[in-house]
């Protein structure tokens, strides 16, 4: 395809991420990947195919298969990053970030500060999140833990275009970046395909580009209610907005793309217009990202709010296995639609 932006191709998120890694590894010798099952011949290319085929071009030194040692992976990434490399580490499921929490929170995030700004830790930690009938230890959305760690940046792309542009920025950033990828958005095909996946593809320019951190995007303009959502929830919010259009309700849907830094301004501007805010998030409710946004916006846009800010999140339970329960657990269009109607009752 060709637009005013130049040539583009349709791509899945998995493909876009792979291309971002490939381009950055070509551009910069210091960039390398490490993780479990990422480069084995005849293997998976990581749990969700993102690194598939890369070892052929870059060899096994730069697509480095590790033992199952999450603390070792993250610690090694910190050490390599401190001394001139730019590692992209992979954790098969975001749930396993808890096995490397000390390395991420106490070391990666703090080394720059503890050194008085003398060292840098340019590492990227890629983590697939989201519930997919794998149960309590393979379906968490732990993004909110990491927004609470000063020194870390947090990215959450929901389209292939964003995924590529943000991953390239993450790799070039001198700070450690947690890069969350939703399992149902990869659009992986073949043996690693996911049931119920949204698999969004988008037009991705052939020409190189990066996307800045801290800049959200308005996915849909509207004037009655602002909905902020990330990752898979962007699609649920858009579906709800489409449905509500028939009822004559106009929703503005914002995708922040990065959680740290966060585009507070974009949300404040929107709320000044709509007077109503709903945050949709697959993280658990208490202590989650949705609450952070609510707290920040009620402060920054106090005079403009015509209704309480509502949070539509996963409940405060672990991820249940049984598909009917999981469906209840993950926020859906119905809950979003109801919430919109509720805030509209405040006039």
């Amino acid at each position, binding site marked *: 395809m060709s637009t005013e932006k130049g040539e583009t191709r349709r791509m899945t998120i998995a493909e876009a991420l792979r291309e971002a890694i490939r381009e950055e590894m070509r551009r910069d010798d210091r960039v390398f990947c490490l993780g479990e*099952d990422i480069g084995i011949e*005849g293997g*998976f290319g990581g749990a969700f195919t993102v690194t598939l085929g890369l070892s052929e071009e870059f060899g096994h030194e730069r697509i480095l298969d590790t*033992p199952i040692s999450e603390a070792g992976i993250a610690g090694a990434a910190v050490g390599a990053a401190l001394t001139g490399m730019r590692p992209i580490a992979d954790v098969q499921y975001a749930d396993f970030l808890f096995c490397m929490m000390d390395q991420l929170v106490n070391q990666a995030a703090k080394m720059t500060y503890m050194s008085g700004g003398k060292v840098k830790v340019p590492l990227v930690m890629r983590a697939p999140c989201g519930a997919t009938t794998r*149960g309590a*230890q393979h379906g968490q959305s732990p993004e909110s833990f990491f927004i609470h760690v000063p020194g870390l940046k947090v990215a959450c792309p929901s389209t292939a275009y964003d995924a590529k542009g943000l991953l390239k920025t993450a790799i070039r950033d001198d700070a450690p970046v947690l890069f969350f990828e939703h399992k149902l958005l990869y659009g992986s095909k073949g*043996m690693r395909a996911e049931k119920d996946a949204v698999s969004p593809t988008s037009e991705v320019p052939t020409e190189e580009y990066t996307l800045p951190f801290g800049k959200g995007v308005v996915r849909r303009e509207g004037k009655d209610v602002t909905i902020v959502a990330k990752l898979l929830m962007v699609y649920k919010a858009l579906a709800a907005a489409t449905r509500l259009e028939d009822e004559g309700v106009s929703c503005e849907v914002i995708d922040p793309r990065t959680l740290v830094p966060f585009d507070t301004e974009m949300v404040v501007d929107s709320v000044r217009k709509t007077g109503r805010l709903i945050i949709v998030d697959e993280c658990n409710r208490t202590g989650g990202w949705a609450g952070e946004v609510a707290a920040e916006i009620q402060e920054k846009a106090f005079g403009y709010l015509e209704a309480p800010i509502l949070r539509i999140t996963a409940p405060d*339970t672990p991820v*249940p296995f049984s598909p009917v329960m999981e469906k209840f657990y993950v926020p859906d269009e119905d809950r979003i639609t109801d919430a919109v109607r509720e805030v509209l009752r405040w006039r």
Partner: protein
Amino acid sequence: MIRPPRESLVRMYQRMQQIRQLEEKVYYLFLQGDMPGTLHLYIGMEACAVGVCENLRHEDYITSTHRPHGHAIAKGVSLKAVMAELFGKSVGCCGGYGGSMHVGDLAVGSVPAIAIVGGGVPVATGIGLSCKMRKTDNVVCCFFGDGAVNEGAFHEGLNMAALWDLPVVFVCENNLYAASTPIAQAVKLAHLSERAGAYGIPGVTVDGNDVLAVYEVVGQAVERARRGEGPTFVECNTYRLCGHSRSDTCGYRDREEEAEWKKRDPLLVMEENLTEAKLITPDELLGIKEAVAREIDEAVQFARAGQTPKPEDCMQHVCAEE
């Protein structure tokens, strides 16, 4: 070599058949789209779970992994309860809250499986501690794969169990691969049991496809544990006769290697051993096999007929009811 009593041999063969046939059925149902979630099947490794658990009492414990169906069945969780759990039904052994990767039932000593690789190891140490503090002579067998021996939790758990002479048997199912990763890309040792020395405990490697060998070696370790002499590390050499998960086609394995191991299928090995020693007739074996097939069908029926949880049930059981 110890010869277990005939009833024990029959039970072991029956259990191995139960595991094998359940897994084959589950795989079929999964491919048909009847079964949700993901799956890690135990096909080819049956002799490990069964050889280990034949040494255990009802009051003893096991901990398990992301590949738990075989362990749970060997410890006594019913086929029905396992099958129903895989279907996400309320009559499942975890009420449909757990799913494939968390199968287990503490009522028979099978701790709901921990699917974090290595995660079960310190938990088993704590169970050993509890068995000792409560002054029981119970033991805990802790199952984990070759991949788990490189996790920090493994290290911390083994060291503590060794230090306090806890009644734990650490059973490493070395099936040569962790997902797609061959063991040589994970550890620089010929035998994983060499790691035992780092904790000052005995380590032994055994043919994990020979249920009688596993039974004997683990039996000694269990006795040692019961006597309060501390843990043992047992490495069972075995092989997955299936993919790592779901529709994995094992592109990372050598087809010849697979064929070699297929010849050493633990069910074949046991059948040969038993018939050669004239302990069981081929007809009897066939009878067991067929009986198990009926059990499996019943389990599927039970699971299909079972109540599906209500969506809002997901709000329950976050904290234990007092």
